[in-house]
Structures are given as C-alpha cells and as structure tokens.
C-alpha cells in the first residue's frame, strides 16, 4: 500500500486552478521526486496537500483519507519542509524544534527526538539557544528538516530543499535525508528544480508541466531521455 496516495488533486488561488487532476503515489518507505520548471505548480501541490490552500480530490495516508486542515495533515503523519525554509527567526533553535512537536503529548520522547536530531545535525546542537534568524541558509534548512521530523512523520514532504544552498551543503543534506529514509523507513516526496541529487534517492519520478503530471517513471527512464535530461537535469 502507498504511504501517500494523491489522486485527482486540483487546487489554486482564487477562481483559477493552478494544478489540475494530479495523481502521485509514494510507496511506503520510498522516495519520490517531482520535477518541474518554475511555475509548474510544484509548491502549489505541496501547499494543497498540507491544507494551506483549498483543494479537491483525494489524499490518503496508509489508505485513510485525510482532513483538509493543516493540523489534520500533521496528525495523519505528513510534515512539510516548506520552500524558503519557514524557520521561526525570532525563536531559538530549541524552540523551533519544540514547535515542530506541537501536536505530540509524549514529553519524554520529544526530548529524545530533540537529542536525536541535534546529533544528526551537529550545527544545530552548537546553536540550540541561538535565534534561528541568525543561522546561515544551510543551517536554517537543516533546522527546517529537523523541525518537520519532530512531528515523527510517516511521510516527509520537502519543497525545493536545495534552493539557494551551496552544492556541498546540498550534498550533505541529501546524504542525511537518505540516512533518515533508510533508518526510519520515512517515505519522502521531494519537489526539486535541479534534481540530480534527489533522483539518486528516488524510486520513481513525476514530471509536472503547467499544473499537470505529464510523465512518470523510474529515475533511469528519465535519464535515458535526452530531452528530459537536458531540460531538467542539466547535462
């Protein structure tokens, strides 16, 4: 069964739909990548899944239809690392992590998770009492991922995690995502513009153009297609 099953998703802002009839399946424990140019509707898809904008269609987690409020989505086990990171700049790193566990009541386990993610991301451990706004872009991205993981999601959504980061940091980030995926079997849906690194993790890839899924397949099938490779993978 799919960890996350999106079928017939349409959403937009105001009267016009930005994405139409999107269907994406994230198999349990696997990583799925969504490719697409600027304006293809990647972020809109993510925001619709998380209940930040109105949506139509069906979203199931482990076969169960989930509600449309952001809290319902988190409760169902889906957490988003938003585009542009969305760190709470005036709060400390530690408080950011605590906010990530907003819906959890297991205090002891929350403390354990804070321990865990600050050891996975040592830059955060050094800065727990520092205001998140003073962190570098890479550090803020690590914090955004750690904060989303604090909810103990079954499915982690990442919206352009590499955006604006140095290549070395992007590599480190994806290596960490790979570890989390293999250790915890956390399923992932990663949206990327430059997706070569993300493709290495993926079991399947979807291509989004002007709000629709126009193609899906294995990473290998995408790499074999010269045109796709030039347009989206840049080599």
């Amino acid at each position: 069964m799919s960890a996350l099953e999106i079928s017939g998703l349409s959403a937009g802002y105001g009267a016009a739909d930005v994405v139409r009839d999107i269907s994406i399946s994230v198999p349990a424990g696997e990583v799925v990548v969504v490719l697409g140019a600027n304006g293809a509707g990647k972020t809109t898809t993510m925001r619709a899944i998380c209940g930040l904008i109105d949506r139509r269609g069906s979203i199931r987690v482990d076969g169960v239809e989930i509600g449309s409020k952001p809290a319902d989505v988190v409760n169902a086990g889906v957490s988003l690392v938003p585009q542009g990171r969305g760190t709470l700049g005036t709060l400390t790193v530690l408080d950011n992590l605590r906010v990530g566990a907003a819906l959890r009541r297991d205090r002891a386990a929350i403390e354990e998770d804070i321990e865990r993610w600050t050891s996975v991301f040592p830059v955060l451990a050094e800065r727990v009492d520092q205001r998140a706004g003073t962190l570098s872009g890479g550090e803020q991205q690590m914090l955004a991922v750690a904060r989303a993981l604090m909810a103990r999601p079954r499915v982690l959504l990442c919206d352009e995690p590499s955006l604006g980061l140095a290549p070395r940091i992007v590599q480190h980030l994806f290596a960490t995502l790979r570890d989390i995926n293999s250790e915890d079997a956390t399923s992932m849906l990663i949206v990327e513009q430059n997706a070569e690194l993300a493709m290495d993790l993926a079991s399947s890839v979807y291509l989004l153009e002007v709000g629709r899924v126009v193609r899906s397949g294995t990473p290998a099938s995408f790499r074999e297609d010269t045109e796709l490779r030039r347009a989206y993978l840049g080599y």
Partner: protein
Amino acid sequence: MELFVERLLAGVTNGSIFALLALALVMVYRSTGTLNFAQGEFALFSAFFAWWLVGTGLPVWAAVIAGMVAGFVLCAAAERALIRPVQRKSELATLIVALGLFSGLNAAVALIWGTDTKVMPSIVPNGLEDYFELFGARVYGDTVITWVALAAVTILMTLLFTKTELGLHMRAVADNAESAALTGVNTSRILMLGWGLAGAIGALAGSLATPLAPEQLSVTTMFPIFIGACAAALLGGLDSLAGAVIGGLIIGVVEAMVTGYVPLVGGAMQQTTAMVLIVLILVVRPNGLFGSKELERV
C-alpha cells in the same frame, strides 16, 4: 521633597495604568502584528460593564473580574469576526476597522450607559484614612493596587510566554503563522486567545484607572490613557513585555513632572507630553528601547 515624592508616586501610578494597557497593545501586536487603536475603548466598555455590575450589588472585585471576562470575549470576537476577514487583504483595512471599533465602542457605551459621569468604586479600601506614608508622601489603596496589578500581570505574561507550550505556540504564530500552522498549531485559536487576553488586561487597566481619573468614569476616560499607553508601547518597542512596563512608568513619570514643574501651561500639557514623546520615539528610535530589530540572514 514631599511634593516631589508625591508627584513621582502619582507618575508611577499613572504609568502603571499606561503600562497595563501597553501590555494589552503588545499582546495584540505580538499575535497579529497590528496596533489595536480600539484597545482603550474595549477597556472603556469593560469598565462600564463592571461599573454596571457593581450597581446590581456585585462586590467590586467580582465585577472587575466579570469585566475582564467581558473584555476577553469582546476582543476575541472582534478579532475573529471583524479583524481577520480584512487582515488578509491589507494592513490599512485593519487600521480602518480598528478605528471603526474605536468610535463604535465609544458610541455603544454612550448609548447603553449615557454620557454622564459615573463613580467607579475602588477595588480596595480607599477612604481618607486608608493610606500609608512613603518618604512623607501619602500612598492610598487605589494607588497600591495598580502597582500590584501591573506586577502580577507582568509576571503572569512572562511565565506564559517563556514557560508554557501555549506561550511557545503564541510566539510561533507571531513569528510566522503559516510555519506554525504547518506544525499543527491551531493559529485561529491562538489569534483569538491573544486578542482575548489583551481585552482582559485592558479591562483590568480600565477598571483600576477610573477611581484615579480626575473625571471618574465617562466616555472620554480612556482616550488620554490610551495615548499614554501608545507612547509606552512604542518606547518599549511594541513587542517587548519589559519594554511596555518600563515605557509605561517612564511616560507616567515624565507626564507627572511636566504637569507639576512646567509653569503656567504645565497642567494642560499631559497628553501633549505623551504625543511629543511618541513623535520623538518614532524619529529617534523607531524600534523603541527593547524592540526586536528585523534580523534575518538568507
């Protein structure tokens, strides 16, 4: 010397009221990022409500608490029903709605309770003999209770923001409502709660202020207090609790000194003083003494 101490204490007392209302302003600013121009009139409505309850035979302390509850409900409802629908559209619209609330609440008070002056009794014994001496100056019960109230509200708010999960969620929503929502925080509830608590604190300020006010409780009682509270909140930096308290005390004392020591026009200078201070703060130090500067690395 006695006169100076008396003026100082009077300044601290007025300043405590400014500070309480400034704390309400900070509460709203921290939850929705708006300066609630109607905060003083919410307090006025709640104070009249408390006065009316005293008239029905309720003890003063119970009436003040009931007034705070009314302030909470009124402010939370205003946020949900009137502020939120326009807030998404523009900052200016929010400001206009707040101004509308200002005149609407004032008119409602006049309509329900009339424009004549009322006498709101003090919550503590406040007779001519109920005082103690401090450096030769007489300190009455209604003075002390404002100091105590300010200290209690400041401590409770500090504990709320720094020690509780609710406070953490309130800070998260103030920082970035969408990010907070993504973690599952119920931002709608948090915003109403922020406004509600501001309404309750404002109601306390209103109920404690009126026994001290020269013209007692009337439709114009809260306006000068609101101006002082605005100056206090701005001086403190709009988002700082400590700033609002220190700002309130400074504004109160400066006003008392100008009123007391500037010859001839001094007595008429009270609100002017606050207004001049507001302009000076905005020009010289827009972030106030303790306000957080926009700080972000990208």
